[in-house]
């Protein structure tokens, strides 16, 4: 399943790269892409592990860029 998350207020391109890298290393993630410009984090998660992956991503994002929001779009 594809999960799309909006990171409103993401303001550092390098942090974006780090968040993407962090999420990539999380278990259950097949594909991930974080666009700094559109502030969209797109995660292709293994079926059934979507919730777990989104939570992990939330933790990673908060750690690296606490100022940015974290809103699951779908």
């Amino acid at each position, binding site marked *: 399943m594809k999960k799309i998350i909006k990171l409103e207020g993401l*303001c*550092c391109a390098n942090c974006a790269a780090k968040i993407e890298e962090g999420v990539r290393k999380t278990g259950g993630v097949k594909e991930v*892409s974080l*666009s700094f*410009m*559109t502030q*969209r984090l797109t995660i292709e998660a293994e079926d059934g592990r979507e919730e777990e992956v989104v939570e992990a991503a939330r933790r990673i994002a908060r750690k*690296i860029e606490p100022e940015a929001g974290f809103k699951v779009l779908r």
Partner: protein
Amino acid sequence: MTKKQKIMVFRLAASAVFFIAAVLLEGKSYYAWILFLLAYGAAGYDIPVKACRNIATGQVFDENFLMTIATFGAIIVGSLEEAVAVMLFYQVGELFSDYAVNKSRKSIQELMDINPEYANLLRDGAEERVEPYEVELGDRILIRPGEKVPLDGVVIKGNSSLDTKALTGESMPTEVEAGSRVVSGSINLSGVLEVETTSLFDDSTVAKILELVENASSRKAKAETFITRFARVYTPIVVVLALALAIFPPLFQGGGWGTWIYRACSFLVVSCPCALVISVPLSFFGGLGAASRNGILLKGSNYLEAVANLDTVVFDKTGTLTTGRFQVTDVAPTHGDREALLELAALLEHHSNHPIALSVKEAYGKAVDVERIGQVEEISGYGIHGQVRIGKDWHELYIGNRKLMERQQIKVDTPSEIVGTTLYLADGREYLGAVVISDAVRSDVPEALGGLRSQGVKKLVMLTGDKEEVGRAVGERLGLDLVYGNLLPGDKVFWVEELLKKKPFGKTLAFVGDGINDAPVLARADIGIAMGGIGSDAAVEAADVVIMEDEPSKIVDTIQIARKTMGIVRQNIIFAIGVKVLVLVLVAFGYASMWAAVFGDVGVSVLAVINAMRALTYKKMPSREQ
């Protein structure tokens, strides 16, 4: 500006005031250092705070940490003034690039401001304002002037013109009347329209386009991955070098710890990779934005990279190079004018509903005088024989294929066309001339092909399911390099694969189709380009690049946008890495101060961002036809 940015401006102004006062007082008063500290605090009190917090969560080597160490180090070795200046300029640079990024984000959003907010639903005669996704298939909606068309549909009542600029890049409004299709996302300009919807919101053109654009930056170009990878190794390397610089030279050469620590701190200032990491995606984003403003949607920045290296372009014939509709393409009377011959043809074909007859009537374009038509008989497989009044006399006319002329023993002296169908006209036994009907080549195809050649595309190929001779004739007229005819959809994949094998290394191949029946080929090519994206879900789905309107010349625009974007990306990468390395070398040998290091960081960032924003603008080159 956002609220955060406004606060920052205030802080920086305060810091600058303290800083200037401190510089003026320096040497005159012992207390100048208090003012320096105030200036430092106002500009960057949050940097050390963030650094500590990040270290607590296990992240070293972020820019906050680096700036903290660098400035504290400078303070310790007694360069208070420079420490404050570095912090001040670092923050100014951050603010500026933040502002630039927000601005370009906004300009893209405005560009894609096609999302309709509401629909005026007609229910039992009463009108109700609802969310577009609440409208069901076949519902009636009302669209007033100035409103966006919320869903795809067909006009039931009313006339108006629609602005589709945001969708197609086409600035001429389209006229619509009862029976016309309307596309969601266009803006109603003049009259009130009543529309019956033909799609749900989720399946509508506007939803599809928005989805595509928002997902576009998730497929990253090689240059983008390269730069993030580079950044990951760059920072640790520079930090290690800084450490070595602080320890080894004073240890082995003796003395001057302060000098070397100062140089090491300057290293840390340059070690932040932000300039690199920010400018590349920003340039690509700008390029994608410039393309969509011109009615060209790309599904990722990797396709910009690919389009910039186009070597082979393979076209589908029908519907892509040609309009796919039969039209009168030539009128050749033996004597007299073309209009008169076409009028006779239109008179004879008046009662027929055959596609050929329709094309003839369309080409004539005027209503015929029915009084002039007498007895008409259709001769199946041959054509039409009819009586037409010319002047005062009735004439026996024949119109049809060559077999008809032979049957009537009429001598024909027009060579028959390979492409399309030729209609011959005769008055009794006298041959009058011919009307050629064929699938017309799109008007901007010659311009498109010329443009592709001048952009360095080496091979132009046409694949067609049509007869080989027909393909050849069209290909020859257009100056294509290769033509393959009699192809089934599977054969097209085969030929594209053959061509893929032949193209030079590092170059790319694009297939251009109308998205109907050619999904496998679109997928097989390096770049699948679908034309006529408006209203064709299949095209939007299967292709990598969608050209919203049937204009092959937009491929040339795509190449130009892609090349410009890639140029900017290359400049930024070389410029940023080059300046950083240069500054590092100069600093290491003591030829540059921390000021140069600040330029190496934020200065480069700002310049790279400004350069990146150039990618957003694209001006169509003056017509390439002349």
